[in-house]
Structure formats: C-alpha cells, structure tokens
C-alpha cells in the first residue's frame, strides 16, 4: 500500500480497540517468567554447548600470538575459536569495527576468542587459560584533545548534512543585544539493557538458525550472512522477546557471530551470552559530545541568531553523534548555523542509543535556552513560546504536519504549578532542601519507513499476524493486536501476534521511535488485503463491507467473519510504503518536560521530587504502554542528567566502569511518581494510523529540565553532565 496522500477516515478511526489503555497481551508471560528470551531456548534444539567470550586487553594494536592449547586441553572444552580458525570474516554493513578481532585489535574488549565447552563453568574456566601476546599501539582516547583535529563527516544516514546555514549568523549574532555563548559537554553513555546480548546458533547443513536478541531482524539477518559469506536465504534469525535494546541491539553483535562460528567448529549448537563486564567495551555506546551554542535575541527575546556546533569521536569510518539536528527545527530565527565535527578516537564503537542526536543535543540546547531566556529577562516558557515556528525554519516552505509545542508547555505549566516558581534562583526552601523547578522542550522526529506484515484468518475466526517486527518492551505485541482487532472487527481474544522471525515479512523494526507507527501501518495494509479477500469470499463488495463484532456486513447482508475461512484459511499480505509526505511536511513529536528537584543545602545531594511530561505525538495507540515508554525514557533522562557517565582511562583507552555496579543507572530510590499527559492529536500526514512515536520523545529534553531545575534551586549553572554534587558544592549558596 502506497501512502502518498494524507489519510482520510478509515476503520482505525472507529477507536473501538485502538486508543484504549489495554493491558499488554504479553503481560501474563512476562510476569510469570514464561516469555522465552534468546539464551533460554532449551526447547528449540538439543545438545547445546556453552560459549564464553574472551575480549582484547588492549585498545589498539595487534595480537602477535594467541596461546589456546591449555584452554583446548581443559576439561569439557570442545573448541576454541580465534581469528586463526574462524575462516573468512567480512565486516557487516552496520558495524564499524570487526566483531572478531585479531590479529589487528581496534578497541578494548573486542572479541578475540570464544571457548566452547560442555558446560558454562568449563567454558569460563578454560577461557582464563588463554594467553595472548599483544603489541600495543598508541591510540587517541580523549575527545577534548582530539577536538581541534576533528573533521566534517560525510553526509548521509539519519543525520542529514553535517552542516547547515541560513542567513548571516555571524553578523546577526554580533549585532544581537542579548547574547549567549556557552559550551556544554555530555559524556559517553551505555545502553545497559537488562538482558545481555545472547544467541543460540545451530547449523543444519549449510543452513544457519540463530535465536537471538535483536531489534532489527532484517538488518541482523543480512549482516550475519554477509559476515559469514553465506547466502541470506540460508540464515534464519528468531527474536520474539528482547530484554531491552535502546539501540544497543540494532546491529549484529559478537554473540551472534561467535555462536555461529562456534557451532560450525564444534559441530553442535552453541549458546553465547556476552558477559556483563564485557558488554560495555565490546558493544556500542552513545558517544560523548562537546557542544558550543550561541543564541542572539532582540530586546523582546526573539531569536535573531542561533548557532550550534558539536564535536564527537568514533573509530575510523565511524559516524558522528548528530547533536545539532534538533536545533535546525526547534526554534524560529532568521540567521542560523549548525556544524558537526567528527574526531577519530580509538575507544569502542560509538553508535545509536535512545534518541541518538536529540538526547544529548537537547541536554545542551535546552540549558542554553534557559540561559538565553534569563539573559533576556523573560520567563523560559514564554521565551520558548515567543520563538515558536510552525514551519521548518531552514526551509520555510515545509510546514510541520502537527506542532503543539506551545500547548504542551502551557498545559504543563498549569498542571505542574509553574506560577509558584521563583524566577530568582536559590530562593525556595523546604527544610534542609533548596527547591527548584525546571522546564525543557522536547523534539524528536517521526521517521517513516516501509513495513510489511501477513495476516491470516482461520476457520475459528482467529486472526494471526506475522511480521518480523520486534517488541523490545515497547508494547508492539499489544498495539499490533489492537490494530488487527480494529481492522478485522474482532476482539483482542481472537488475535494472535507472532513477531521477530526473519521468515515473516520484513517490518520497520524497532529503532528511532519509528516502530509503532510504521509496523502498525504495515499491519493495517495487510488487513486491508485480508478484508478484500474476506469480502470476495463472502460475495460482498469490499468497499461497502463493514467488519464489527466478528461479523461482516454489506447492505442488508451479514455473515460471520469465520465463515469466509470455512473451507480454507485466508491470507492478506502487504506493507506500507511512503511517498514524499515527509519531504513536503516536517513530521515531528513534541514534549514539554517539567521537573522539580531538591538539593540538600549542606551536601548538594540532588533528589528529583516531581516529574511531568506533556506530549504531542499523533494518535496514541495504547495510552497505557505509551505512557510506560515515556516514563521509562524520563527515567533514563534522569540518569543522563545526574549519574550516567562512562569513565575513560585515557592512557589505556577503555571504559573503566564497565559493569552495572560501576556504571550507575537510576534505581527505584532515584525516581519519584511520574506524570504523563498526551495531547489529543491525530496526524493524518504520518500514516493511516495517524500515529507517531513516543519512545524517544520521552527522553528528549529531560536532562536539561533536571539541569534547569537544579539551577533554579541553587543558582549554580553546571554545563558538564552528569550533574553530580561535586560540581555544585563549591558554589552552593550559603
């Protein structure tokens, strides 16, 4: 189905099932421990052996020799895989560094060996017996030091052009009566999803099946075939349950490749989970940024010049963190510039983490806006409203399809009690606590991408959806079931959803908050096909047929839906494909984030006391699971603001705090009750679902809202994340 004109009224608009806060259909499985994750598939293939991964102990250089004889001789060991016996390995299209290192080592904890044994304990013990002679090379591990040598990266990918310019930024900024020129930093962060990357691999002749944990089934299948040099059709990838991803499982990773190699050499199925202390340096992370923001306004606080430059680093041939992108869209201003620079660093691979670009970009931009508003003497909400734009400010012929940022901010201000905020910082106390309130805007684009599904109707009237779409905790199972139920006129109890299998039609996958809208639009398209087949079978004109309560009706004729499949199952298969509506319109989602913090007047300990997000993100398909996406993202935003930071050993080139004890993420005690409000919105430009995404919008701006609240509480402006008490203590009000 081609979607190239805005949606009109369609069966989804009935909202009998869609739009309801339905409990997740996978909830009973997840809460009883019966939802099977990758490493747990004892049921799928017999005689599974255990793999244990060895990571490189240097950041850059080469392996001169790898001594595996002791490991091979250890009890229970079946095979040891290294670059010497792995066969030809081609780097995947989505990988920057090779997944099996040696002799060249590109980053610390790059996998260099897999030990396969009868038991996990044996594999682990034998792995300790591998000795490696390394030759260490000098590397670059310090973004600040590499910044001046950073270059303009190639255009392409999701980031678009690295640099943009409109009007005459330099002249307008120099002439502005109110000027802000400040530099902000965000640190390297890691996804820290709860389920380690894990895979069971089994060969049947030259056919390979992997049960794994992956957000993007088709990407993983393609890159696994490419890496091994085998035809794509010989690879099947199965990933029905995924214990969190956040971008860390977008790509083929070492667990999949090593399990496949191990199984080939061991001649039996092999299961591999990346050990937790290995994951942070072995896999991808969100790269650190240095961001310079300049904002010039007139005396009324109208932006006349806005400039945003960002520096980040990655391995050779890697990509930048696109932290300037939201600045191209969020506020008006006639004179503007953005610039992206990329340094070569020899740290582990930088790549996407929840809201890549916007999450760290808004952490900087939305402090800068708070600072600019203060300099202009204007309330920060009013400042944002004055600088609203309903068109793409770089290309004013492109309107936003929907943009209710002002409404988000106004409603949030009312609900959160913004009027009680002291404009002067450091003035509100509650016992030992200094209290502050902060706000930030959030923007995350709606990305449209094709997505397919197959829908079956059987003689019992059961509707079964098949698509390689994934549910990474997002609620995909449930919203796809709601879509199919709405389209076919049945209850949720008549719908079965099967996901995450590369033998199913290729979907959008889970990333960039594009999953919900695109995958349900694909199911919509497949259901349209199935409705046509049903109508034809029943002898109805499909254009007139209505589907409701398990019945199909046209004119004064009616039949049970199941009757259409009485002789033979009916199948509808189709996908959604998009025209150029995303070129004609800027499609984005918006949020107003509100945070109240308390800062201990003596110790500068920071506690988040209240949080509210008001979101405008198209039709909300399931307010319960969508709200969970937003509160989860708000929680990760608190982590980014207050604690998350990969500490770099700049001599040896690795992330030191590479486990869940050293890398701090929010726990229960860090997070208060959270409120989320969705504005009533439908976006017919987006898809037949009229939906957009929320999973990344929820994190966009949260960090800055926390930072601005801390400033409001204390009068101390911290521009280097995370905001820890040591950065406040010396400047705290007495």
């Amino acid at each position, binding site marked *: 189905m081609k979607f190239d004109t805005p949606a009109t009224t369609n069966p989804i608009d009935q909202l009998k099932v869609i739009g309801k806060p339905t409990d997740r259909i996978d909830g009973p499985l997840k809460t009883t*421990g019966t939802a099977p994750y990758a490493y747990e598939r004892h049921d799928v293939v017999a005689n599974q052996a255990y793999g244990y991964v060895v990571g490189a102990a240097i950041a850059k250089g080469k392996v001169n020799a790898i001594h595996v004889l002791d490991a091979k001789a250890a009890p229970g060991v079946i095979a040891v895989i290294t670059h010497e016996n792995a066969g030809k390995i081609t780097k995947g299209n989505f990988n920057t560094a090779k997944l099996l290192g040696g002799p060249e080592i590109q980053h610390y904890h790059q996998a260099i060996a897999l030990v396969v044994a009868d038991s996990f304990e*044996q594999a682990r013990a034998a792995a300790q017996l591998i000795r490696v002679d390394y030759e260490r090379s000098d590397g670059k591990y310090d973004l600040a030091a590499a910044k001046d040598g950073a270059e303009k990266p190639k255009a392409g990918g999701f980031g678009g052009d690295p640099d943009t310019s409109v009007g005459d930024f330099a002249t307008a900024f120099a002439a502005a009566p109110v000027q802000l020129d400040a530099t902000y930093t965000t640190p390297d962060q890691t996804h820290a999803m709860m389920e380690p990357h894990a895979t069971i691999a089994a060969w049947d002749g030259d056919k390979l099946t992997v049960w794994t944990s992956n957000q993007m089934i088709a990407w993983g299948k393609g890159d696994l075939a490419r890496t091994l040099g085998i035809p794509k059709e010989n690879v099947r990838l199965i990933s029905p349950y995924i214990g*969190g991803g956040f971008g860390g499982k977008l790509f083929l990773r070492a667990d999949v490749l090593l399990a496949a190699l191990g199984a080939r050499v061991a001649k039996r199925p092999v299961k591999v989970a990346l050990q937790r202390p290995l994951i942070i340096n072995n896999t991808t992370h969100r790269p650190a940024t240095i961001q310079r923001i300049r904002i010039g306004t007139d005396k009324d606080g109208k932006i006349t010049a806005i400039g945003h430059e960002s520096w980040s680093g990655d391995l050779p041939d890697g990509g930048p963190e696109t932290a300037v992108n939201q600045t191209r869209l969020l506020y008006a201003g006639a004179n503007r510039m953005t610039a992206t620079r990329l340094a070569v660093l020899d740290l582990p691979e930088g790549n996407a983490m929840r809201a890549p670009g916007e999450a760290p970009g808004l952490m900087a931009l939305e402090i800068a806006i708070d600072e600019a508003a203060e300099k202009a003497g204007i309330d920060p909400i009013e400042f944002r409203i004055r600088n609203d734009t309903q068109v793409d400010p770089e290309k004013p012929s492109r309107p936003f399809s929907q943009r209710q940022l002002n409404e988000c901010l106004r409603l949030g201000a009312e609900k959160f009690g913004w009027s009680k905020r002291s404009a002067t910082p450091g003035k509100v106390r509650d016992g030992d606590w200094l209290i502050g309130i902060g706000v930030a805007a959030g923007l995350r684009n709606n990305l449209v991408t094709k997505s397919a599904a197959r829908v079956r109707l059987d003689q019992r009237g059961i509707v079964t959806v098949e698509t390689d779409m994934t549910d990474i905790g997002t609620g995909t199972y449930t919203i796809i079931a709601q879509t199919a139920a709405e389209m076919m006129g049945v209850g949720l109890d008549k719908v079965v959803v099967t996901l995450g299998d590369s033998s199913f039609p290729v979907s959008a996958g889970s990333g960039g908050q594009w999953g919900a809208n695109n995958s349900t639009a694909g199911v919509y398209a497949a259901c349209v096909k199935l409705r046509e087949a049903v109508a034809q079978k029943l002898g109805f004109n499909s254009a007139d047929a209505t589907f409701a309560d398990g019945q199909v009706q046209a004119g004064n004729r009616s039949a049970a839906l199941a009757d259409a499949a009485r002789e033979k199952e009916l199948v509808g298969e189709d996908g959604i494909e998009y025209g150029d509506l995303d070129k004609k319109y800027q499609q984005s989602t918006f949020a107003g984030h509100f945070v109240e913090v308390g800062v201990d007047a003596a110790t500068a300990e920071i506690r988040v006391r209240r949080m509210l997000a008001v979101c405008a993100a198209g039709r909300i398909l399931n307010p319960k699971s969508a709200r*969970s996406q937003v*509160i989860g993202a708000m929680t990760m935003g608190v982590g980014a603001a207050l604690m998350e930071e990969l500490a770099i050993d700049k001599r040896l080139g690795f992330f030191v705090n590479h486990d*869940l004890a050293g890398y701090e993420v*929010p726990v229960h005690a860090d997070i208060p009750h959270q409120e989320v409000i969705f504005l009533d919105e439908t976006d017919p430009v987006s898809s037949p679902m009229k939906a957009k995404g929320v999973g990344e919008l929820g994190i966009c701006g949260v960090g800055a809202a926390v930072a601005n609240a801390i400033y409001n509480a204390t009068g101390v402006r911290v521009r280097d994340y995370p905001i820890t008490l040591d950065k406040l203590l010396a400047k705290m009000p007495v």
Partner: protein
Amino acid sequence: MQSSKDFDLSRRTVLVGATASAAIAAAPAGAHAKQAGEPALSKFSLKVNGTAHQLELDLRTSLLDALREHLHLTGTKKGCDHGQCGACTVLVNGRRINSCLTLAVMHDGDEIKTIEGLGTPDRLHPMQAAFVKHDGYQCGYCTPGQICSAVAVLDEIKAGIPSHVTADLNAQPQLNATELRERMSGNICRCGAYSNIVDAITDVAGSQA
C-alpha cells in the same frame, strides 16, 4: 597479615577446590589436562517450587545456573551474574537473595521459590496481576526479579525489618512509597518502570492490609 604468597596459595586453593583438574590445568603449558578427569561434582537436593530435585552438578554452578540451565526454570534471569542488577532474585527459605551470588551446592535441602512458583499465566499471583494491571514492566527481563523482590519486601515490612529509610528502628516500619523504593533499589529496571512498579506493589499491599 597474610604474606602475598599466602594469599596466592589461598586464592589458588579456592580455584582448585572448584575442580579436581584445576591443579593440572595450572601446570605448564601443554599439560595433558584433558585426561585429568572431569569437574568435581557434588550430589545435593533442592526443593524448588514445592518439587524436590536430586542434582549432581559441577561445584562451581551458581544457584542461578542450576535453575536456568539444569532445571530449565528460565523465569529467573541472568542480567549481570555479579549481584549488581537483581534480575536473578529468588526466595530461599522465604528470604530473597541474588541467586547468581550463591553456589547451588550451598543450598542442599533448601526450599527455593522462583517466579514460576508464584503463579502461572492462567493463575497469576496477586503481585503478578498487579504488575500487569499497572504496566510495571516493559521488556520483561527484570520483571521476575522485581516481582520476587516485591513479594519479599511486603513480608519484610510485615515482619518489622527496618530499612535505610526507616526513621524509628523501634517502631513498625511504614508501608509507604519511600520504604518500597528503598527496599526495591537492588532491582534495576533499565526500561524505567519504577513509578508503575511502586503503584503495583502499593496496590497489592493495600488489598492485603
């Protein structure tokens, strides 16, 4: 004070204790360790969710791996294997522990309750039902640990066991959000369902009161 030699010895003793072959594996490169025998096994029994299991396992097997890899009770999750995340929380003789931090052989005769022993998809435990109702999970991987912890937390409060945030150690601990958040903080949820999890536990606590 131990000398470094003593330390070295005692550390090796621990490793050797784990497998009869380790002493040989630590011998010079190329030693014929393979013939040196299989891992040290031990026979013991666990009563898991009311069912007695006779096991003979490598001494190094954690309680977590005994459950997941040998009894195929995979509801208990391995998030870190280092006692840092809480995904492996189970109830041993009624008290919650991280099953990754304890060896299975240490639990001979113990009564273990896992997420599978609390309820099933058709007969959910009230805490499981409350997690579904309040959407107290997203990816689901930390969820069994959260639920086992939550069940134990309510028992701990009922038993009068204080926490870091209990103001008066001589008084019965309060059942409020602050106490729940403190006591649940060993269970990380990276999806960030905390606000909903506290709502779910509060719901169950209220209906029990």
